[in-house]
């Protein structure tokens, strides 16, 4: 059967490679110092989606992302690898959302897209590590959910067979469609960008990403596929009260830079004498046996 698949993807600051300039003196995050990347586990989810598309002729894969206009890059990265379309949810009213308000926005967009068989997303995003958005989207849509998936083995007779990680092991579950699946980083890595598709979609942008001065701007007239879908709260018939900061039950009371409780530290070199001395000291004081 042909499947309509939506991949939830997020553009995130690369928190894995945080340099010293990533934090300001006031202890807030200097986002400008961190490169914006495709959330790693969302790439694992994209790969599962593309495999399902290949296994089920006639299927389509669309990338749904929420963020500022520059997050259009996430959709392009999907198109370069074989996705068919994408939607960027962008509106100041979406800003400041916690996981619940984010889920509301995504769920509303998925309803607008309509007739979706499978929603795939990464288990969690590296800037929050909450793993909450997938299950919350599922709940808001009244769909079944399977989290921590490592492989969508097959889709047959309206049911997906999925292998997933559990604490201390693995299990295989069968879930009727439509279903929301979140994918673990231990799943297959994403395929590289396809050269032809990269050429084709290189100039694909959302209207808000454009300056109007692009040398190739007449292409937007002749090639409609270069204009990516861009949706506001109103475009998805969203309730403003449930979006962004106002739709977020959790509030940040305080953010602190980490202050280590400095200890009296004994520093030694890597010379034989120093290491030998340390071992003797640790043994004498029965710190090690």
């Amino acid at each position, binding site marked *: 059967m042909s499947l309509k698949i939506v991949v939830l993807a997020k553009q995130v600051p690369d928190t*894995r490679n945080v340099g010293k300039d990533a934090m300001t003196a006031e202890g807030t995050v200097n986002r400008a110092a961190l490169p914006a990347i495709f959330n790693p586990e969302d790439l694992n989810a994209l790969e599962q989606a593309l495999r399902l598309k290949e296994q089920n002729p006639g299927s389509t894969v669309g990338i749904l992302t929420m963020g500022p206009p520059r997050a259009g890059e996430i959709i392009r990265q999907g198109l370069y690898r074989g996705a068919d379309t994408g939607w960027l949810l962008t509106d100041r009213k979406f800003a400041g959302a916690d996981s619940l308000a984010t889920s509301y926005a995504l769920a509303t967009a998925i309803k607008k897209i309509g007739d979706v068989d499978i929603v795939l997303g990464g288990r969690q995003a590296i800037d929050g590590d909450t793993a909450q958005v997938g299950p919350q989207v599922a709940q808001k849509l009244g769909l079944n959910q399977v989290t921590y998936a490592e492989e969508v083995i097959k889709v047959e007779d309206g049911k997906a067979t999925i292998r997933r990680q559990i604490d201390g092991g693995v299990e295989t579950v069968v879930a009727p469609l439509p279903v929301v699946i979140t994918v673990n980083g231990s799943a297959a890595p994403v395929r590289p960008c396809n050269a032809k598709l990269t050429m084709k979609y290189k100039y694909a942008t959302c209207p808000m990403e454009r300056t109007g001065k692009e040398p190739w701007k007449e292409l937007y007239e002749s090639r409609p596929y270069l204009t990516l879908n861009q949706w506001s709260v109103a475009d998805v018939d969203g309730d403003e009260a449930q979006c962004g900061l106002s739709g977020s*039950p959790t509030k940040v009371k305080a953010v602190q830079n980490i202050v280590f409780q400095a200890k009296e530290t*004994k520093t030694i070199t890597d010379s034989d004498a120093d290491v030998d001395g340390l071992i003797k000291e640790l043994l004498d004081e029965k710190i090690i046996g």
Partner: protein
Amino acid sequence: MKNVFVYCEIERTTVQEVSQELLTKGRKLANQLGVELHAVVAGTDIKGKVEDQILPYGVDKLFVFDGEGLFPYTSAPHTDIMVNLFKEEDPQIALMGATVIGRDLGPRVSSSLTSGLTADCTQLEIGDYEDKKAGKKYDNILYQIRPAFGGNIVATIVNPDHRPQMATVRSGVMQKAIYDGKAKGEVVYPEVGKYVSEMSYAVKVIDRHVEAAKNNLKGAAIVVAGGYGVGSKENFDLLFQLAKELHAEVGASRAAVDAGWVENDRQVGQTGVTVHPKVYIACGISGQIQHIAGMQDAGIIISINNDPDAPINQIADYVINGTVGEVVPKLIKYYKQNSK
């Protein structure tokens, strides 16, 4: 009403340690707030087998849901139980493990109830909150404290207007202890069918393999842990050799796990295991907060790093300036020489 609830996770008829740790924490919070501690457990054929693993931690009332299809865990039936029970009981705080189950169940429940949920908390405290913009003050609410932004900052999260205030906590972050005070210890066995819709059993588990933990990282007296500075899988073998000599367990930072040098069940930190060893030997670990959150209670911290400015050095008792490849073989050599 307005009590503290803990969701108890089970493997067949064994209550998971993380749930007992949360019961101990929940008891303290309940005492501070002057309310009761309630617990929920759901499974198949568990009546008479799980109560003794839960009540001693100071539970005033335990809800045991025993029915077909509740084990192995699937999202929807357990969500139905929690959501419908919470609608009746109106708890002010609900805690669950930041395990695969808790992180599957928590968001689903919080979304159903439109209540806030904070994942992977490292501290839970009671305090006051003032919303200056709205001019509102809140007494005795739950501070949900967690590293954020890849562990570069620590955020205190509150849910001022929504109940329950929900939080997940990783295994090993809290310490379990049998409660020595008085608790009511009442047990009830509600009828599962009144809480779970038949439709909710749609997802079926057809195959399942669970193994006991392969390492004893959580309970180890000495941990030898490696980070990105270890440099290679070969160098990581040195850590295993040192650990063998010291009768220690090997841990790792997230960077070392991401590099594929060591299995992810050895990851120490906010999104891994929290350890409380007597000695923690950090090899080539820079010391992101994410990692520190999982090992800062270690008795003695020894840092081996060729970057004298590595943040972890600030909390270390001993710092050895050098590379892992140079220093670890020397540690092994001189330990062998001196311990005999």
